[in-house]
């Protein structure tokens, strides 16, 4: 389709020195082009699409299971999750239930796969040496990689929430949302809170993604990096549940993940949310710095 303009341009190219191309007016900025290429790589990869499909399927299965269980569990003797009792009244709550369950393992898994693979995968394939001799620029490549990880994490959260809302709407009544604190807000405000929950969890996944990026710069074996990130996330979650480690709990990467439920109360416990966001931000800064320091100073022998 672009053959007309494509064939029109080359005659000018051989004449001028290569350097002049850099300042061609109207060109897509170089950074954006690499970022777009990264996104394409992540989102066209069959494995990553399969991950997103699983993320979309789980809320559907969850919704069906809860729908089947709802009439029987009338007595409320069920493990007493206030989320689940809310669900019977409103399908929007399926989004919160799904996020709560999936943030424990499935969402971190998706982010671990993409972030652990980011640099180690290129090193393993050998494409890293080609990208760097192009030259992509080490810091620039790392920035594009991290941006793609953040976008993938956000997409994963959005997929979970969208699938939950669709399933919830199909299987349960939709209407004004009764919050965990007992008050009822209109549907519009309920959905707005869903959006904030999604963004908060995406920020949590961005922090985990930074850890994955850093781990990924230390190895040529993507599977090793992915496993390491996942183990780290799980260990953090376990440690967070051991009371004797109470002193370090606030510093664990997973500690603030579930604090999104502050958004489901009135008034919203903003200090918890801000603490969480601060923790995520600190993790992003520290681990992106580690990734940068490692990646820009290491020999690429893969």
């Amino acid at each position, binding site marked *: 389709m*672009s*053959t007309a*303009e*494509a*064939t029109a*341009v*080359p005659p000018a*190219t*051989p004449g001028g020195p*290569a*350097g002049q*191309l*850099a300042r*061609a007016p*109207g*060109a*897509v900025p*170089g*950074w954006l*082009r*690499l970022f*777009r*290429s990264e996104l394409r*790589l992540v989102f066209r*990869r*069959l494995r990553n699409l399969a991950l997103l499909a699983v993320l979309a399927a789980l809320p559907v299965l969850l919704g069906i299971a809860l729908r089947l269980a709802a009439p029987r569990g009338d007595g409320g003797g069920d493990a007493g999750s206030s989320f689940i009792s809310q669900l019977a009244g409103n399908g929007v709550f399926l989004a919160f239930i799904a996020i709560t369950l999936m943030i424990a393992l499935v969402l971190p898994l998706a982010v671990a796969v993409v972030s652990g693979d980011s640099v180690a995968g290129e090193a393993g*394939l*050998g*494409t890293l*040496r*080609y*990208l*760097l*001799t*192009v*030259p*992509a*620029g080490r810091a*620039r*490549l790392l920035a594009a990689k991290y941006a793609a990880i953040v976008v993938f994490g956000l997409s994963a959260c959005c997929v979970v929430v969208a699938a939950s809302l669709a399933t919830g709407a199909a299987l349960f009544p939709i209407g004004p949302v009764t919050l965990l604190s007992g008050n009822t807000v209109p549907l519009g405000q309920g959905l707005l809170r869903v959006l904030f929950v999604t963004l908060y969890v995406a920020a949590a996944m961005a922090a985990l993604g930074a850890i994955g990026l850093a781990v990924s710069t230390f190895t040529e074996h993507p599977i090793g990096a992915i496993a390491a990130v996942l183990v780290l996330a799980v260990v953090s979650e376990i440690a967070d549940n051991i009371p004797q480690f109470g002193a370090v709990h606030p510093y664990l990467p997973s500690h603030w993940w579930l604090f999104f439920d502050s958004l489901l109360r009135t008034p919203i416990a903003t200090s918890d949310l801000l603490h969480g966001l601060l923790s995520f931000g600190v993790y992003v800064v520290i681990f992106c710095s580690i990734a940068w320091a490692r990646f820009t*100073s290491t*020999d*690429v*022998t893969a």
Partner: protein
Amino acid sequence: MSTAGTGTDAGTGAEAAAPGAGAPEAGAGPDAGPRAGPAGPPGLPGPAITTSGLTKRFRGGQLAVDDLGLAVPRGSIYGFLGPNGSGKTTTIRMLLGLVYPTRGRVSLLGEPVPGAAARVLPRVGSLVEGPAFYPYLSGRANLARMDAADRTADPRTAAARIDAALDRVGLLSAAKKRYRAYSLGMKQRLAIATGLLRPRELIILDEPTNGLDPQGTREVRGLIREIATDGVTVLVSSHLLAEVEQICTHVGVMRTGRLVFQGTLDELRGQGSRRVVIRTTQPGEAAATLTALGLADIRSADGEVSAQLADQSPERICRELVLAGVGVAGLDTPRPNLEDLFVGLTGEGFDVDG
């Protein structure tokens, strides 16, 4: 005070002069001015690649490259030779800023690497240690990915440039095929195509024919020749002597991390001494005659006697043999076998089939 002052001045002056005097030998730096390399075409300033004192010691303590002083003239096809493990790939990785040198300097097209890598590498195309691409992407998508990584490339011409590069290596008809399904020769050619995505001044090819069948090897060799006709400098590494002998103007020979020879192919041939080979039915008498002529290193084999020619003329040897009554069935002074010279330089044979 004054005497002491002049003394130190003289001392520092002498010290300062020493590296300056040594520089032309080690390969002049970017400031060397108009003095082009000996075989460089006129009008092009400076060599394409120079390194001085280039050394790489890996963390394990292994000394991969030791005090290397490469000088690749502009417009040359430089054969970078050495057995596997002699440090060629590590050197190439240092030239391209992938591996940081422990010591020494690299100058690529007059710019320091890795310092100015971002500025100079767009003018350099490369294939490093075999092709490596995303197996699940097509050949065209793989090139698009590499082009997207180049911040100085014009995205508006990307499609046309990618197709031109594919066409040049003969892969246009397989552009939509996944890289996974490519044959080894096609993979190798796709790697060369990444180097041709835009006009380059220097192409660095690390073992471009490794693992290829004779047909593929010939194709790649033809491609290298064609690239070089545009005045592009080509550095091609190989452990196979036969490959470079046919296409190179210059060679550098590595042995265990050190450069043991650098110069033109003729200079290399000149290093070996020519021999005279006589076919005869009287090897004993022939050997005696050659001894009488003062020739060294006389070897007798079945119906053949050979010796180092040194400064003797073949005509005189033939006459003396005939006068001595030796029946000469044939007399030859073959050019020295490059293979033998290499074995002498590197201390071990080049494996023939990779």
